[in-house]
C-alpha cells in the first residue's frame, strides 16, 4: 500500500456518483449501513459491545477499577476513553503508539460522554483524595471501513448502558473491598455522535473508507435524547457555510435518534 495517496480515478468517480444523489454501494446520501450491536458478550468486562456498521467492526470494553482521583476533584471518579487502532484492522495501520486519528477518535467520543454528564462522577468516590472508582472505556477497532466515530460512540453508549458495576465497601481501616454484588451503572443521559461528511456540494452520513478518503471535510455532532447538542468536532481542510452547518445539525439530530434506538436495544 502506498502512503495514503488517493487514486484520482477513485476521487472523480465517488464525487460524480454522490453528485447524482447516490452512493457507490447503492445507498441514499443520508442512509446508514446496516448496524448490528451485541452487548454484554465479554465475561471479564463489566460492560461490552460489539458493533458492526457495514464492514466496520469495533469492540468496546468497559472496565471498572480503583485508582487515584485528580487533585482538584478528590471525591469524583475518573472516566477514561482510549482508542486502539489494531494493525489487523487495515492494511496501512501499523503497530506502535496511537496515531493522531486514534487520539482524536477517543477524545471526540470522550467529549460527547463527558459533556452530557453521562455518569455522576461524584458518586464514585471511595476515600476522599486517595481512592476513587475508575471507568475505562476502550474502543478497539478490528476492521476499518470508515465512520469510526459513530460506530465507537454507539458502541460506548451500548456498552455503558449494559454495564454491571461492582459495589465496593470501604472498611473503617480504609481497606477497599470489591463485593460480589453488582449494580447496573446509572446513566443520566444518552449522548450519541453522528458524523456528516461533505463531498463536493453534497452532505452524506456514515462514510465508507473510500468516501472518507475523498471527502472534503466532516462535522461530528453529539446529540442527547432530548435533542440537546453535547459536542461538535469539525475536521478537514475546508470551510462549511453556516447554512451547511445548520443542515448538518438537523441531519445529526434526526439520525442520532434512529441510531440510538439500536444502541439502546440491549438496555
Amino acid at each position, binding site marked *: 500500500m502506498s502512503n495514503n495517496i488517493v487514486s484520482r480515478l477513485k476521487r472523480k468517480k465517488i464525487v460524480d456518483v454522490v453528485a447524482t444523489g447516490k452512493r457507490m454501494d447503492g445507498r441514499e446520501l443520508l442512509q446508514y449501513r446496516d448496524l448490528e450491536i451485541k452487548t454484554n458478550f465479554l*465475561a*471479564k468486562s463489566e460492560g461490552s459491545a460489539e458493533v458492526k456498521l457495514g464492514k466496520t467492526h469495533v469492540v468496546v470494553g468497559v472496565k471498572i477499577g480503583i485508582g487515584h482521583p485528580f487533585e482538584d476533584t478528590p471525591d469524583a471518579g475518573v472516566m477514561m476513553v482510549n482508542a486502539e487502532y*489494531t494493525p*489487523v*484492522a487495515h492494511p496501512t495501520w*501499523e*503497530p506502535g503508539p496511537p496515531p493522531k486519528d486514534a487520539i482524536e477518535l477517543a477524545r471526540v467520543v470522550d467529549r460527547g460522554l463527558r459533556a452530557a454528564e453521562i455518569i455522576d462522577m461524584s458518586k464514585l468516590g471511595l476515600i476522599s483524595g486517595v481512592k476513587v472508582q475508575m471507568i475505562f472505556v*476502550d474502543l*478497539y477497532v*478490528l476492521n476499518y471501513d470508515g465512520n469510526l466515530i459513530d460506530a465507537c460512540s454507539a458502541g460506548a453508549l451500548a456498552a455503558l448502558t449494559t454495564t454491571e458495576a461492582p459495589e465496593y465497601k470501604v472498611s473503617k481501616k480504609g481497606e477497599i473491598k470489591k463485593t460480589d454484588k453488582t449494580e447496573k451503572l446509572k446513566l443520566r443521559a444518552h449522548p450519541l455522535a453522528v458524523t456528516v461528511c461533505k463531498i463536493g456540494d453534497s452532505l452524506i452520513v456514515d462514510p465508507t473508507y473510500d468516501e472518507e478518503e475523498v471527502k472534503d471535510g466532516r462535522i461530528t455532532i453529539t446529540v442527547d435524547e432530548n435533542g440537546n447538542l453535547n459536542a461538535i468536532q469539525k475536521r478537514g481542510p475546508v470551510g462549511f457555510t453556516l447554512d451547511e452547518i445548520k443542515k448538518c445539525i438537523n441531519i445529526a439530530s434526526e439520525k442520532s435518534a434512529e441510531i440510538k434506538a439500536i444502541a439502546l436495544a440491549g438496555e
Partner: protein
Amino acid sequence: MSKTTKKKTTKRKTSKKKWTRVDGRKPDELRPIHIESGVIPNADGSAYIEMGRNKIIAGVYGPREMHPKRFSKPNMGILRCRYHMAPFSVDPRRSPAPSRRDKEISMVMTDAIEPALFLERYPRSVIDVFVEIIEADGGTRCASINAAAVALADAGIPMKDLVSSCASGKYEGNLILDLGDYEDKNGESDVPVAYLPKNDQVTLLQMEGIMTQDETEKCIELAIEGCKQIYEIQKEALKKKYGMVEATEETEEAPEEEEPVEEAEEE
C-alpha cells in the same frame, strides 16, 4: 503470574478417588473449540477462534513490501507475528502498550509458525500476522497460533502444513490437557506446545512450574494428542467457508455440468 508450588511429591493414591477438574472435564479433554475463517474483510486472510472462553482474532497481511526496508532480507521473506491483548481482555484492565510478555509470545509464535511456510519464495517481503486477544481464558498463545495458522491458509499463503497448538500441565497432582484460566493460574505447571502433524515436529515448547522428567514427557505427549484433535478442527474451519455454498449447490444441479476451472485462461 504466581504459581503455587505446594506439591513437591506426586502421590496419586490420595487423590485417586474421583478427582475431577474445576470445569468437570476429563483430564485429556479439550475445551470446546470454534474456529471461523475469513472474518476480517480488510485482511488478506483472517480467523476467529473461541477456545474455552478465549476470544481471539488473527489477521494476515501480505506478502507485502517490508517497511522499513533495511529490515528486509534479499533472499527470503520475513514472518512477523504480533500478539497483543485488548485492555479489557483480562481482570483488572491492562495497559494497551505491548508488555515484555507480549513481545516474548510474539517471538515464540513466529518460531512456531515459520517452519510451516515457504518464506524463500518471497524475497524482500514480509508476511504480517496480527493477533488480538479480545478475551483471555488461559492458553492464549496456543489459541493464537491455532487462529494464525488458519488465517495464513485463508490468505492463500503456501504452507507445508497447518500448525496446531495446545497446552498441557499439572494441576493438583494430575496431568491434564488444555488448561483453563483457573488451572493455569493455580496449577503446578503449564506446558504450551505447537505441533506440525504431517512432519511430527514440535515447533513451540515452553514450560513453567515444577514437574518430574517423566511427568514433563507425558505432558508433551498429552499436548501432542490435543494438537492432533485441534488440527482436524482447523481443517474443518477452512473447508466450512466453502461448504455452505456447495451444500445448496448439489440439490439444484446435476454434477455432470462440471466445468474444469484450470482450463480457464486469461483472454
